[in-house]
């Protein structure tokens, strides 16, 4: 499952980033690293772009970036 598919207000755990190395690296430097909880806060009309909260910081990501971030739900 990717971050762009998660419903607003639900918290998931990051599993990894499936993107070319420079982009994956940069998303990691922003805090999108495996094991970190992330929550979609809201999305614009048609679902793009979206705002995601991670470690107390809110980022606006387009669907192309959010779609590259793999997430899971802890049972």
């Amino acid at each position, binding site marked *: 499952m990717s971050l762009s598919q998660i419903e607003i207000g639900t918290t998931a755990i990051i599993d990894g980033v499936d*993107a070319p190395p*420079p982009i994956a*690296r940069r998303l990691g430097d922003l805090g999108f690293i495996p094991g970190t909880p992330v929550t979609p806060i809201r999305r614009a009309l048609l679902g793009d772009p979206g*705002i995601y909260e991670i470690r*107390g*910081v809110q980022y606006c990501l387009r669907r*192309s970036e959010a779609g590259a971030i793999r997430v899971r739900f802890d049972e």
Partner: protein
Amino acid sequence: MSEAGLAAPLRFGLLGSPNSGKTTLFNALTGLRARVGNYPGVTVERREGRAEIDGRRMVVIDLPGTYSLAAISPDEAIVSRVLAGEIAEVPAPDALIVTMDACTLERSLLLLAQALYQRKPICLVLTMVDELRARGGEIDLRRLSNALGIPVVGVVGHRGLGVDKLRRLLGRPEDWIRPHMLPPEGAAERAAWLDSILSNVVATRPGRNQVSDAVDRVVLHPLAGSLLFAAVMVLFFQLIFSWATPAMDAIDVAVGWIAQSVRSALPAGFLAGFFADGIIAGVGSVIIFLPQIVLLFTVLYFLEGIGYMARAAFVVDRAMGWVGLEGRAFVSLLSSYACAVPGIMATRTIPSPRSRLITILVAPLMTCSARLPVYALLIAAFVPAATVWGFLGLQGLVLLGLYLLGALSALCVAALLSRTLAKADELPFYLELPPYRMPSARLLLSQVWGSAAAFVKRAGTIILAASIALWFLLSFPRAEAPAGVDSPASASYALEHSIAGRIGHGIEPAIAPLGFDWKIGVGLVASLAAREVIVATLAQIYAAKDEGLSLREAVRKDRDPRTGKLVFSAATVASLLVFFVFALQCTSTLAIIRRETNSWRWPIFAFGYLLALAYAASFLTYRVVNALA
């Protein structure tokens, strides 16, 4: 140490992510004495400030805000290149000051971990500790210092709290504690390192920023947010378009008065003309932009500082994304309706260099206020004051059509450029939404001052030089009209025999397919100074008594001496209007593109592609209208 005062100054690199309070701290440490320039080869601004602590001189290098030292574009690479001392004019810093918003400690430690690998003395400055406390958060600074192995200071930059303590610390970087070991490499290990530090030093995490959350529910709402965005933009447009006008008119009148005084004080001839029409008019054409630039940047930096720009970018990102631009480009394109110069300067708020470059290249297509006198002259003279469908004025419709043609072309060119130009270095799009904060007046003042000063210094010199050069072209060689000719006619005679007049004749074969004769050619040469100059130049050529009614009559009646046909036929007028929609007839815009892209390549490219576009569109318009007529 007596030799310390004479030795080379200590150099500190100020490193931090955007919104980390870096600029506020820079101002607090160095006052308003920053030296602003450009790094070679990139569009990144270079800022250095000086300070003195305990008689020891120091230089603070304000590094561009960054989330990472692993650069993915040449612009971003500046930070690591400065740290490594790879830029010739900028010696490597001796020590680093890393700023960090206390409320985003967790994320910011990732940048610090990379900075530690620089193996330089580092001190950490936690900013906005007041906001952390207000949100119920608590961080143990001493434990943080022990865990990281570097000195840590908490400050509230805009109120100066903690800055004295930091100053004392900066006096002795040799004595700073250094880490025993570096953070581990590898994502998982780095995450574990982060967690162990956080669990050790964070007593209570800050709660959510309730105010920001509440405001965002309105500001980012699909409907309310869009309406608010539209309202902000209308106000913004009003501000730079209407409110700057009185100040600009006053400058215009004052410059005209000074030029007139100089002309009457000096004996008529070369010197009087050079000072009045060359230098004073040239300086005037620089400072005429200042009211717009100051107003624009005051509003822009305020919206940026308060946190609205990031929200506005979110609201319009989708629409701008269609043409390959990002949300912030909207503000710049809108400003360009007033004038492309402040519009292009406003692109500094666009983080992606590629998106910024495309915005700069299409900004001159937005219909700026300098085109209005040209449109007004031609429309008033040639478009009948008829009404369409009973209530719409035909003249107004033509004007609206010209505005739309410019805007649509800008979007098409943007879409085209984003699919061709620099396609390879595709950067990820991300935007931090900082909590709403009231920017301090001092910070605003320093930012607006910096931008206005940079404009006058960098673009102003080019604009002044170009104005003087054009004055030479229009005034030399000095031709004396035959005796018995009245004064407007002798001015017309002098202009026809000037270098510009000869250029006008010279380019006539090239512009004849567009329906232009040599007189329009001279006007086009003169309008390189600024578009509206073509009106004054035509008035001079036609020896018109004023630029209003009598010029309108003169252009309407003018006939080609060889063919006897009207010079300004319907096809020629349409073609000239279309030419002005596209052509980059403005040295100020070229100068500002040169300044903002730090290379002559892009102003030349912009001038070339817009000239080609103007030529093609005018040619087509001339043929089509001729065929219809």
